[in-house]
């Protein structure tokens, strides 16, 4: 697992207070991890801070699973 994936999963575990083993790449933030829509906004804000990138609104809307976040950040994070 890449370093980025590790950091993404750590943020998700901390923010949503879920067990680490539930945070798989296919896990959907809302359906599988119990996030509400405001949690997803906060997660994006947390990713922006951790990886020092800006995630525009239209990109943020496509990030619905843990894997989506990892993929976006692998492509866009410095």
């Amino acid at each position: 697992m890449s370093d980025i994936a590790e950091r993404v999963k750590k943020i998700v575990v901390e923010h949503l207070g879920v067990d680490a083993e539930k945070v798989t790449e296919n896990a959907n933030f809302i359906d599988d991890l119990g996030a509400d829509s405001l949690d997803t906004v906060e997660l994006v804000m947390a990713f922006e801070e951790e990886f020092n990138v800006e995630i525009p609104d239209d990109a943020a809307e496509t990030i619905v699973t843990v894997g989506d976040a990892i993929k976006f950040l692998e492509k866009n994070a410095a």
Partner: protein
Amino acid sequence: MFDLSGRKALVTGASGGIGGAIARALRAQGAEVVLSGTRREALEALAAELGGGVHVVPADLSSADSVEALVPAAEAALGGLDVLVNNAGVTRDNLFLRMKDEEWNDVIAVNLTASFRLSRAAVKGMMRRRFGRIVNIGSVVGSTGNPGQGNYAASKAGLIGMTKALAAEVASRQITVNCVAPGFITSPMTDALNEKQREAILANVPAGRLGGGDDVAAAVVYLASSEAAYVTGQTLHVNGGMAMF
């Protein structure tokens, strides 16, 4: 009670009578305050009067760029933002049938759209810090309507709806969003009224006097305080009983 020590606040329209009173009251309770408004000299004068703990950040809320820059500037000056008071407002009164699109748009832009943009910008940091207070200054006419103020009444009624929607969205993050709706408050405009006009207004105010900026400011201090944590989405009318809801 209502101690605001360590809180960081932004007040728009602080060069006006009510905004100045709000800034003074927040400062008196211990908050550090950014004074914003269009008239730099008036803001500097208020800052000089208050001494320390205040910063002047002029902004023209009719300009989208100026609005977008204000919250980041305030956060930079204060090191964060806990309390946003959307107080700035303008009037462009005219009979409905004579009202120009421009008069409508000017009032909606400053009173409603700027409050939306400032709240959107401020709530981000508030969510991170798990604390926030947004107080929108409405008006009794947002609930009652008033001849000649179709634009102004619509903007203030819009603030009430916006207050409720945002309050519902962010309540779980310990952020409250409320509205304070003043009635007739003394100002240079009410000072210019003659005795007869004054009597006609007061006939509709059970308290028998015009309100002061302090009356409005006290309501803002309460809603900004930790004690008001369980009050959100509300409109607090400060009008001497002239309209009751």
